[in-house]
């Protein structure tokens, strides 16, 4: 299973890629595999500031629905609209075309507090 080393991770199975003071956020390969086929992503928080650990949306698979938790405080700037018609991109390319939101972080330094790829891999035992 793939856990790119340039990304940061959370115990709730989100990944974060820092790009300046913006962050791109999605769910991990492990998460998409556990969920199965993803059929709907709902992000009702675009344009709002979401606190660290708060819910910014949900991901619906065929068999279940899961909350999406914000890894770090920030304003949700944009949603990956490609997922509206092709939610399966989260399954096929979780770290690339399957990204979910772009966020303006309140404090980019806080990124260092997230899990490294190695830590996350250990956590999920993969």
């Amino acid at each position, binding site marked *: 299973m793939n856990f790119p080393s340039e990304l940061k991770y959370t115990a*709730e*199975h*989100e990944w974060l890629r820092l790009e300046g003071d913006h962050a791109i956020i999605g*769910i991990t390969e492990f*998460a998409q595999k*556990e*969920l*199965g*086929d993803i*059929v*709907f992503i*709902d992000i*009702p928080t675009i344009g709002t500031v979401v606190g660290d650990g708060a819910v910014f949306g*949900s*991901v*619906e*698979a*065929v*068999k*279940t*629905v*899961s*909350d*999406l*938790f914000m890894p770090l405080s920030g304003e949700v700037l944009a949603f990956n609209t490609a997922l509206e018609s092709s939610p399966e991109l989260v399954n096929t390319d979780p770290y690339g075309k399957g990204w979910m939101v772009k966020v303006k972080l309140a404090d980019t330094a806080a990124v260092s507090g997230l899990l490294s790829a190695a830590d996350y891999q250990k956590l999920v035992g993969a």
Partner: protein
Amino acid sequence: MGNKAGEFIFVFLTSIKLMENTTSIITQVPLNDLHESLGAKMVPFAGFNMPVRYSSDLEEHHTIRNGVGVFDVSHMGEFRLKGPQALELIQLISSNDASILTNGKIQYSCMPNDKGGIVDDLLIYKIEDEEYLLVVNAGNIQKDWDWIVKNNSFEVEMTNESADWCLFAVQGPKAAEALQSLTATDLKVMEYYTFIIGEFANVSNIIISATGYTGAGGFEIYVPKAFALQVWNKIFEAGASYGIKPIGLGARDTLRLEMGYCLYGNDIDDTTSPLEAGLGWVTKLNKKCINYEYLLQQKENGVSKKLVGFTMIDRGIPRGHYEIQNEAGETIGTVTSGTQSPTLGIGIGMGYVHSAYAKVGSEIFILVRGKKLKAQVVKMPFVNRQV
């Protein structure tokens, strides 16, 4: 990401924790190792470790609708009832009229309890005069057994054969062709809800049953446990050129939901009446079963809530336990099963609503994670039955 309530919540990360925290024993089906070697994700279901998905829920769903696939549902329970009064016992415990069964015929039925609810839903096979096979839900095997024993004042000989049989549901429009080389019986002409007992894949005493829980057509093959692997392999050899695939319980659930078939524990349980659940068609009050008076009264006076099917008008996916509201925002019911229909690509669900809202075409609202989304009561099945 984190799991929220839903009937399949145990499928995911929490399943590991559930297994660790529970003291109950999880039983393996005889072909457990085979499923694991095929890459199945195994999850505890009804006390058994079951394959929930081999590759993709959606792919597996479409395989059954368009081709042929095999579910290992060996967790199901089988009871044999024998004796001059076997029919009398069955008529007492089940709501349908089993007296119309002839040898080789099968009937869907349910067992009412004495408090207005349902002990279980089941299939009744008439093997021969004075001999029947009852097929019950895995999670209810002990409860059903105790219930029938308690009501057996007829000296009917009962055998719990649940651990002796494996059950493979070979479903899909290509099932008959895919299996034909394994049996002398002409599968194409076998009528729905009939069965034969005979040789299949060079093994004798196999029950070939033209039944299923998918609406896609096909057969359920009851195999003595010792021959399970042999028969499974023969089925896959015979079906190879038809693209036969193993299918998990995840797809089984979306397939049955598209048909509007009830799942015990979700849509029906110890507290729901068969008449509320839309099982009036298997509740025949021309004979006296357990709780006959109550059911008769319900039939005459009507029921206050009904199980309905609905499709989402607004974008969203209903799930079990979500609240159902009317336009004014008053609670009128609860969702019992829901998913995004792989065939239709929209949210579909079943749930109990106050009878005033049960009419086809009624506008209802599903409270989906805080959002009130519009839905409409529809006639089930959601997808045309292929049998």
